[in-house]
Every structure is written in C-alpha cells, then in structure tokens.
C-alpha cells in the first residue's frame, strides 16, 4: 500500500477513525505521519520529553470534539500570518512562533491552556505598566463594581455612595485615556 499523502513511499502506519458512526481510514508513510503531527500515537523508541507530552495533549483535543470527520484531511491548515507557523508545526514542537500565534490559534488554544493550567484560562497576575495599558484600571474598576454590589445588598448605602463616586472618577479617567490613545 502506498502512502496517501505523498503517493510515493509505502504506507507503514494505518489509522482508523470513527466519528459520528462514520469510519475513515488513513494510510501514511512514517515521514508524512510525522509531518501531520500524528506521531504521538505511536511514539515508541524515541526519547520521551515534555515536548512529546505536550504534543500529545495538543493533538488529543480535536479528537474529543464532535465533527472531526475532516480531521485527517485538514484541507485548511491554519497558519499564523506573521511568523507563518502552521498549527501542525506548533503541535509538533510545542512552541509558538511569535506573540501573534496566540491570536491565530485562539480557537484551538482555549482547551489546551485549560488543560495545562488546571482549568484556568485567564491571566490573573501582574500587568506591565506600558504594555498593559488600561487593563489594570479596567480590572480595578470591575473589582470596585463588585464591592459596590456587595455594599448595596448589605444596605450600607453611605459607603456605597462613596464608592460610586470613586467608580465614576475612575471611569472618567479611563475614558480620557482611551481618547488620548486614539
């Protein structure tokens, strides 16, 4: 049997995939399978590293989602417009090519990030002064609004009024920053 991908080398790896009751088969040579990032499934004999583990994690994900009929065909390979890294490449090396990749692969990334970080998906730490822009002010505002809600439910209206003024001032400053930035 000849590899379906390159139509040159003999196919040594055979995949069978069942999804939505439909059976798909794929026959690949080792090189093409590797390029497709499927290696994790039969990763024997090679040194096992964090990268392999990560590659495994990255690759399992699509199989868990419904509508993966097209999984093997991958007609549309997602590619980062800035550094030209493709999703299969990312899966293989477990590293992004540039900061823009986080945006390019955002749909695939969500579940991966949650899996790697115990279910967490949003940064909750330090915000850089310059690159963070108004994010810290916005975060502060959200926190203040939450406190305001708590104060109102506890009927502590005097404190709530003070806090409301503070929120208004912050919102005003934020609006000014936005205007200034444009």
């Amino acid at each position: 049997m000849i590899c379906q991908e390159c139509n040159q080398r003999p196919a040594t790896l055979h995949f069978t995939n069942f999804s939505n009751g439909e059976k798909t088969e794929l026959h690949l040579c080792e090189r093409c399978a590797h390029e497709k990032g499927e290696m994790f499934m039969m990763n024997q004999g090679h040194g096992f590293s964090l990268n392999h583990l990560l590659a495994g994690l990255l690759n399992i994900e699509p199989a868990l989602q419904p509508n993966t009929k097209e999984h093997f065909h991958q007609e549309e390979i997602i590619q980062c417009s800035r550094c030209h890294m493709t999703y299969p490449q990312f899966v293989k090396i477990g590293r992004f090519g540039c900061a823009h990749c986080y945006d390019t692969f955002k749909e695939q990334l969500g579940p991966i990030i949650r899996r790697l970080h115990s279910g967490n998906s949003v940064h909750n730490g330090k915000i850089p002064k310059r690159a963070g822009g108004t994010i810290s002010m916005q975060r502060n505002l959200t926190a203040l609004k939450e406190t305001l809600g708590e104060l109102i439910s506890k009927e502590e209206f005097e404190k709530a009024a003070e806090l409301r003024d503070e929120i208004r001032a912050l919102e005003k400053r934020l609006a000014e920053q936005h205007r200034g930035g444009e």
Partner: protein
Amino acid sequence: MSLERFISQAVSSWMSTEGPDSDIVLSSRIRLARNLSQFDFPTLATNEEAFKVTAAVEEWANSGSHPGASRFEMVKMNDIQPLQKRVLVEKHLISPHLAENSRHGACLLSENEEYSIMVNEEDHIRIQCLFPGFQLSEALSAANEIDDLMEESLDYAFDEKYGYLTSCPTNAGTGLRASVMMHLPGLYLTQQINRIVPAINQLGLVVRGIYGEGSEALGNIFQISNQITLGKSEDDIVEDLKSVVKQLISQERSAREALAKTSNIQLEDRIFRSYGILANSRIIETKEAAGCLSDVRLGIDMGYLKDISKNILNELMILTQPGFLQQYAGGPLRPDERDIRRAAMIRERLKMEIKEQ
C-alpha cells in the same frame, strides 16, 4: 591557582552565604519569562532578529537604571569557550539549552551572581534571581524590580487574557517559575520521601532531582517548583509553594529528631564513615561524592561534626561537577581522571577547614 583562590572566584553568593532555614533550604529561585512584541520568538526568529534582541537587552543593561549597586555584565555565548559555558550551566546561571542551542544567546550576570538574565533562550528574556536559603518572596520582589525596569524601555508581548505571552504555552500568564532547592536526608533515611513526592505532585507542584528534568535526586537534594503559571497571581503561586516548603521543613526537622533518638549511634557511624571517605579517598564518582557530602552536611547541621563550615555541601556539589573540575585542572579530563581530581579536590577542601581553625 590555589584551591582557595579558585573557590573564591567560582562561588556565587547563594553558595557561600547563609539564608533563612538554610540547614534545609539551600537556595530559592524565581524565573520570569518575557518576550519582546516586535520580534518572533527565538524558536523561529531569524539570526538578524535574534541579534537585535540581544542588542536591545544590551542597550538596556548599559543604560544604567538598575537596582542597588548591581551592575550587569553581558556574556555572549558566541564569545566564550565550551568549558566556560559548562561552568555557567553547573552554577545554575544559564540553561544547557542557552549554552548549546541558542542563536545569539547571551546572559546578563550581576556581580554577586544573584541575578542572571538569559537572552534568546526559549523566550527572548528570562529574568532569574537566585538567593541563598528560604527567600522566595524576597527573590520575587527582586525579579519584579528588574522586570519593571526592563519594561520601561523594552516592549513586552502581553495579552489581557493570556498575560505574558511565552514561547511555550506551559509558561503563559505570569511566566513565573518559583523553585527551591532542599536538602532532605532525614526524609530519605526515614523512608518517607517516596510517599511525600507523589503527594507534592498532586498539589500542582513538581519535584525533581538537583540537576533538572528526569534525573534522580543526587545527594538527597530536591528541587520543588510550581507547575501552573496562568490563572493565579504571582504572590499566590509563591505563597502556595512556600506553604508546602514550610511543611517539608518541619517534617524534615522531626525526621532528623526521630533519627537522633532512635538510631543515634548508627547515624553517627554513617556520618563519620562518609567523612572518612571524603577525607581519604583517591578516586570518587559524582554519585558517591554526592551521597557522602549529604551525610557530612547532615552531620554538621545536627552537631555531630564540628568546626566544618556548612557551605561545604553547596560549594562541593557545584565544584566537583565535570566542568569545574576541568576548569580547575586547566584542560579536558577523561571521566576516570575526573574521579581522581574530584577526590583530590574534596580532600584539599576539607584540609582548608582544618587549617582555618
């Protein structure tokens, strides 16, 4: 060169000074991963881009806005010999990856070697602070200070949702890896360590042997670090690690007390035998040396051995590695020659202790 002079030049601050709880926690380290938004990450960056990253960091280093008295010296991987790189790796100042596989890799070292900023490793910038003893919070604020100063003139890749964007998604968010190096002979001798390691893993922390990933714990030295970098604040990550380390410290102390009570003479025998081997052997392998050094350090901490300085373990663990031995010898050595050199260095170092009395 005399051994004394060699040591004084080779030893970083964390090896020679004592910190809080340094009978058990040898060192505390904080690492922050940062990238510059305008360049591709080092994995894909062109040579030209990698060069520009190094140049940008070098310019920052020369601009002079650094905390305290610490001046930074830039060491470029292309400019130094393989043996010098190996020595930097053995001192935990740079990673093997930076030494061997980086393009335009460099590091900024502070004079006391408490700070080391790697450039063009897996990420553009990795700020590291290595402090003696149990000083995680102190190391975190020191690293933050450098981070803030760098951010003043360098454009970081940052995203509201995913925080600091890193080359590998396992570091995204805070980009923070906090770790401690702990000497836990009591837990080993009382056979508790095999139960404790899996328990620590379940808490989202990673336990490793001293020399990084995948190696067994040589000389009862374990490195414990956080796994998760996203979703928790820097302070929470450090506090969570600290609370586990505190528990380990108290368990190690009670294991040592129990050992002294139940098998005092056996313990004393073990310590003095190990001392005997270190003081007299003519050939010694890394593994045996590490085990004996662990026993001797335990003996010092528990008062069986007097008049020997505590930092002998930290120092000799580092100095008896292949790179240092060859640097001291002034040239390459075969493994069997290293074992002879190692034994000689340890004997000589112990003699220095006796002289000083």
